[in-house]
């Protein structure tokens, strides 16, 4: 096991959004250009404490995401580093042309935080459940896309983002998730974390699916299969060196994402492998359909996103290896 991993997988003591807000405040303490731009979901996104700490640096636009993204572009043109918060569906799908033109096309410096990744939108249901946001953002040139597996990433990655010029999309969720990393874990944007070694199959996951991948590894171990688990927290630019190394050494890849299998992490991995080192791949993800209301556990079963689903695909994938 990797020394970055926590010894026991238990529920985090801090909500994802609280850890994010701590990191944003820390970034703003040292970088006076950091601003907080909101679109009337500040309570949900957990950034109220930023407003209390820096009232003059928090601007709530109200329910106008298209305008808010353009507004962030204008702030960036004046040298500011806006962090824009909205639910993932509205931050990306609702304001896609604005993200494309007002930010990316003109090389602005705006950080978009899209909340409620995939099934974590739970009771808000299909209208609020982004299964397409990674796909949309992958199509935007030069957009960096990050989906953290737990709260540990924020403390280093948010200040790093504030000090790295360019447009970023962070796919976040608000509640407590299972703790993956210990407090000494390190993260580099664009560099995947290999969490466990293994050479029968590699499971490449992001977000809440990293924990499912680690559980799948345990299931596979009982069948004598050793699985490598990789946290691909930066979906774009993809750590292709890590992907190709896993393909060479394991010969079979399973991708796992809380997102449509069209346009997401799995397709990014498939593209990299097709170009450089083709091996069998199986994708765990939402199969080209819409969200719905339900508890997270229920939805993960409905959309076949569980550890058991990953383990099943891993065995299928190993069976496809050329003997």
């Amino acid at each position, binding site marked *: 096991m990797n020394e970055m991993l926590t010894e026991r997988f238990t529920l985090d003591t801090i909500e994802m959004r609280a850890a994010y807000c701590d990191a944003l405040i820390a970034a703003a303490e040292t970088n006076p250009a950091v601003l907080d731009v909101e679109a009337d979901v500040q309570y949900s996104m957990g950034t109220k404490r930023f407003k209390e700490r820096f009232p003059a640096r928090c601007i709530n636009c109200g329910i*106008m995401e*298209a305008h808010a993204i*353009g507004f962030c572009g204008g702030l960036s*043109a004046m040298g*500011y580093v806006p962090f824009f918060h909205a639910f993932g569906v509205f931050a990306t799908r609702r304001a896609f042309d604005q993200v494309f033109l*007002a930010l990316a096309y*003109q090389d602005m410096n705006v950080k978009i935080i899209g909340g409620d990744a995939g099934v974590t939108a739970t009771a808000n249901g299909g209208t609020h459940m982004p299964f397409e946001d990674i796909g949309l953002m992958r199509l935007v040139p030069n957009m960096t896309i990050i989906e953290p597996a737990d709260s540990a990433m924020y403390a280093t990655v948010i200040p790093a983002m504030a000090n790295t010029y360019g447009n970023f999309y962070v796919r976040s969720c608000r509640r407590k998730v299972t703790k993956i990393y210990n407090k000494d874990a390190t993260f580099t944007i664009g560099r995947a974390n290999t969490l466990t070694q293994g050479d029968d199959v590699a499971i490449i996951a992001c977000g809440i699916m990293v924990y499912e991948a680690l559980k799948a590894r345990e299931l596979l171990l009982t069948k004598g299969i050793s699985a490598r688990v990789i946290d691909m927290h930066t979906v774009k630019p993809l750590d292709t060196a890590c992907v190709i190394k896993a393909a060479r050494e394991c010969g079979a890849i399973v991708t796992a994402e809380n997102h449509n299998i069209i346009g997401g992490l799995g397709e990014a991995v498939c593209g990299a492998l097709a170009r450089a080192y083709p091996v069998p791949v199986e994708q765990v993800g939402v199969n080209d359909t819409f969200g719905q209301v339900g508890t997270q556990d229920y939805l993960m079963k409905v959309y076949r996103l569980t550890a058991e689903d990953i383990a099943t695909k891993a065995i299928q994938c190993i069976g496809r290896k050329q003997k």
Partner: protein
Amino acid sequence: MTIAKLAAAAAEIRKLTITAIESAGYGHIGGSMSICDALAVLYCDIMKIDPANPDMADRDRLVLSKGHSGPALYATLAYKNYFPKEELKTLNQNGTNLPSHCDRLKTKGIDISTGSLGQGLSLAAGVAYGSKLKGYTNTCYCIVGDGELQEGQNWEAIQFAAHHCLDNLVLLIDYNKRQLDGYTEEICAPRSLAKKLQAFGWEVLEVNGHDVEAIRNALLSIKRVKKPYVVVLDTQKGYGCSFSEIEGFNHYMVVTPDMAETARAEIDRRHHQ
């Protein structure tokens, strides 16, 4: 600058606009010609800018939200020596720094890239808000088309700017009554722009958009009254020469060297009348 010199500048900018579009062979003539007078007043008399120092931090900014009218802005920037006038002949050529729609990464003097209609005012609001945070006393000007105001994002930005008292933001509406497919009145009537903007909490001025003295006086009368200002420019699409004024479809036209020569002579003739 005297009114006579401003009128001469506007005529020169119109001729340079024609020359740029002539070099490409075709282009957005109608909406470019209708804003030449406002651009002349802004860049020659009103805006705090320094063409020798185009990145001056506390300069005034212009967001040309109707980005397809880039040729008129390029002509203005060339007139102000941001780049050589000869470069206008590269409009839309392969590898050019002067693309059909404004691009801040390519063209010296362009503050914001535009082209997807309806987005510029939000960016301008960000520039204005950011300027206030910096403690600057500058102004951000934004030009939108009347057809462009059909895009809903404008009304988000209009509401936002009033709420945040962005009195360093000045919107100019090129009220030329026409859009690509015809007359705004027939496609989706704007009704009273002045009353709508007033209802949203803006200070409204209405002027003849082809009278440089009227435009100048309007812009000079603007006060910092904790409200954003809008100047409705009553204009004519394609204004300045006969071929573009009388053409039924003048949004985008082929311009031959003969047409351009005739147009430049006519612009001179009208200017000296």
